């Protein structure tokens, strides 16, 4: 057939910086700064044709090691889908925004800040060094070249200063997400920390695992628990490892499982002893991380591909020390808050 109608272009204009030599991006309270060719320019939304703040790179959602397992095709960056394309910049629906900072970290030119628990876009207002372009193929190509250059530049400052209140607020939102969206959230956190992560496709009853990750150091399964049934996570991991080993030829020895919880399980639960039992009997070391810990690394521009030191069990139920080592400073979250860095009671 013929005469397919073209999709309406919502964007009326896109932008590029005049320079290709961006040296660093600095996040600060008064709006973020792009440092290019020794000069500083205010960061602003380029209204990207390929907005990294809205969609993850499809390649990062695929793990070659697990190629024959069906993964989710949802490529949205924002788990609550608060971001949409606007005429002159992306738009953020603040009623949906969790203030997690995923979009801020994903933007190559730091055009998004998190202020008072909500993402804010720095919109173009005649900043220097920025050129306005009509939405043409040529302009999109030029913009894309610039963004690729920017993707690996150094990030300075913090996306968000952690505090008990900030963490509690985000936890509240995570509870409202359904399980699929929670998994997508965790996937996107890991991807932005430099990993490839696939989340199992919804409705795939034979593949009970939540997801798997792969990076330069290895690979493994990912189980996400946002409730209080941490023991079920340990059991699920044993199930996943057996299924992957027998049905998909992914050896138990090479599979380094990760349990990602919203709260570290309480000391009273048997989870910590069971994790130790599993290590002693099978040799499998279940690493336990929290969503809060991943966020802390995200806000501090950390790349994390080695999870080895996140093995904790009944002997030590805290990840604070390891996280402070990675970030390189004291973390401003009170002991025991929401079980983010150490288990409660």
């Amino acid at each position, binding site marked *: *057939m*013929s*005469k*397919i*109608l*073209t*999709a*309406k*272009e*919502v964007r009326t204009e896109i932008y590029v910086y005049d320079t290709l030599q961006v040296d660093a991006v600095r996040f600060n309270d008064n709006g973020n700064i792009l440092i290019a060719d020794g000069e500083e320019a205010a960061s602003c939304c380029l209204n990207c044709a390929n907005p990294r703040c809205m*969609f993850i790179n499809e390649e990062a959602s695929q793990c070659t090691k697990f*190629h*024959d*397992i*069906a*993964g*989710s*095709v*949802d*490529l949205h960056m924002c788990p609550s889908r608060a971001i949409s394309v606007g005429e002159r910049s992306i738009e953020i629906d603040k009623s949906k925004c969790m203030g997690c900072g995923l979009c801020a970290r994903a933007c190559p030119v730091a055009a998004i800040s998190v202020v008072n628990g909500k993402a804010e876009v720095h919109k173009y207002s005649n900043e220097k060094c920025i050129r306005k372009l009509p939405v043409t193929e040529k302009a999109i190509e030029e913009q894309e070249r610039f963004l690729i250059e920017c993707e690996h530049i150094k990030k300075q400052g913090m996306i968000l200063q952690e505090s008990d209140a900030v963490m509690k607020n985000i936890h509240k939102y995570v509870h409202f997400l359904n399980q699929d969206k929670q998994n997508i959230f965790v996937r996107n956190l890991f991807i932005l920390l430099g990993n490839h992560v696939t989340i199992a*496709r*919804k*409705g*795939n009853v*034979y*593949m*009970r695992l939540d997801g798997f990750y792969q990076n330069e150091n290895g690979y493994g399964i990912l189980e996400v628990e946002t409730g209080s049934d941490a*023991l*079920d996570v*340990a*059991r*699920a991991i*044993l*199930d996943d*490892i*057996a*299924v992957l*080993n*027998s*049905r*998909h030829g992914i050896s*138990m020895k090479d599979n380094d499982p990760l349990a990602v919880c919203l709260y570290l399980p309480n000391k009273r639960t*048997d989870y910590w*002893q*069971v994790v*130790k*039992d*599993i290590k*002693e*009997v*099978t040799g499998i070391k279940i690493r336990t991380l929290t969503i809060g810990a991943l966020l802390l690394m995200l806000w501090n521009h950390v790349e994390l591909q080695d999870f080895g030191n996140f093995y904790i069990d009944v002997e030590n139920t805290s990840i604070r020390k390891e996280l402070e080592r990675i970030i390189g400073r004291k973390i401003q979250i009170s002991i025991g808050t929401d079980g983010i860095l150490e288990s409660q009671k």
Partner: protein
Amino acid sequence: MIRFRNPGSDLDTMIAVLKQLYHELHEKDFFDNTDIAKVLSKANLMASSGFTGDKAVALGANTNKSRDKTYNNAKMYAEIFRILGFLSIVNDAASNYRFTFIGEHMAAAGVDAKLLIEQCVLGMNNPNRIMDVSYKESVRFFSCVLLTMLELDDMLYRDEMILGPMSVNDNSEEDFTNMIDFIKSLRKTKSERKLSTELEKLAKSQTDNKKEGMTVNSVQNCTRFPISVLKYCGWVENIRCNIYGKSMVFMKLTPYGKETANKLKTYKDIRLEDYEKLSKSHREALIRLGTYSMLGRAGFETNVVQAEMDKDAKEIESITEGKEVLFSPYQTLDFITVNDALNLQLTPYTASQKNQQSAVLKTYAKRIIKKNVVELDYNTAINQNLMTEDTDNFIRNVMQLIQREKSTEQIVKILVEEHRGDNKGEFYPLVETLFRIIGVDCRKSRDGVNAERWDAMIRDAHKSIPIEIKSPGEEENVSIKAIRQALENKIVLLSRKTYITDCQTSSFVVGYKAPNDRAEVAELIQNIKETYGYKIAVFDIASLFLMAVNIIVNKKGINIEKLYGLEGIVNVKDIDC
């Protein structure tokens, strides 16, 4: 009642599937379910038993097409894509498909194709000329749901949706008003029982596969797809509220849902019966206007066809009353009629193109699951040292049944029935009793001892066996969860050495009934054995009764040594039966 099969509720996957199909198949004059299956498996978009690609095809394949998972998965997608107006049947063959003009736009839409999905969802209407099954209700279902919610304080409960929009002729104002009044009257009763009674009445009045009556569960299952669509489109969200005397999860219109519902009120909704009353030129104008209006609302540029739209709008102004048209031609009419009106030329079908059809998918070997038959052929007797008050009571009960001239088989049936409603408190001691009669020192764990993760333990000097028990009150059929717990029990026992055991001795699961998905549970048990080297054996309560009753009645049982090494879903066979 309008019924939606459950084609999977993940619309993102459906969109990805459509795009991939278009990429691979759009140059073909037609394609069939086999072509769809091949594309999906190649692109890892279809899973069978958790696998994708060739493995999915291998596991799902069956020479009998009606049982071929891969083929059926493709068929299911084709069906939903037809309902949504993306595919149409050509050549009068039930499974020769082509992409419609709307389907082509769907495939071309960017990553976010939600707006076009919304239009196609609103386009679904009954009766139509596209689906083989026609329901008696005349309804534009999703529009009806939104308009119903507007009338009912923006809220709707799942069962109300069944009694309301799924069972109404919404083209009759009177029927629609009566339906709203009916739901309002149900709400006034504040009685969940009243709502359930009405639902049961409706279920009983349905016919399914020529059988009279449906179960309430089957009727409720028909709501999965619509509820996931309503949420995907951002029209509703869940809210808990107490309208029927207890807190229940209702759907509540979001601001966007409310805006959509209010817009719908301003549209001219045209159905098949209205279309059929029109002249040929009016029909064609309506098809064009309906199609382009949908695309315009979905965010496509309609400038190039604006003149045509204006002309058509003028021509049928008396029919549309000057309002925006809600009419989805590909979801109402046959493919050729719509294409002719849109002046879309198709390559004519020729006989030689029949060869385009793909070869039948290969059938691969199925996964072989071992059967674990335990024959009760070992001469044995009750071990008096293991008897307790509970075992004595059980034996007395069995003896009384024997005196009433009941056979072993009948006794087992009676006992299974007697314990149908058991909770932990009754069921766990029963399992302990049965194992003691079978001949092992079984003791249920004390309540509140966290470190004893198992529910009971067969104590032995060298080969202790942890038992995970699921009472019928917890779950009727043994689940995957129970198998996971049995594995954990084994690991914990080996680590903590609370009782002595070894790696070769089994870990048991006892439930009321065998697993529903026997193949998956059996395979997981096999996977656990291959990976960790531990055996897990699953018993249903009937098997334990059969073993115990046989010892009491026939002094025949199982060699205890065999018991320690059992694995898989145990099938106890009474050799005298």
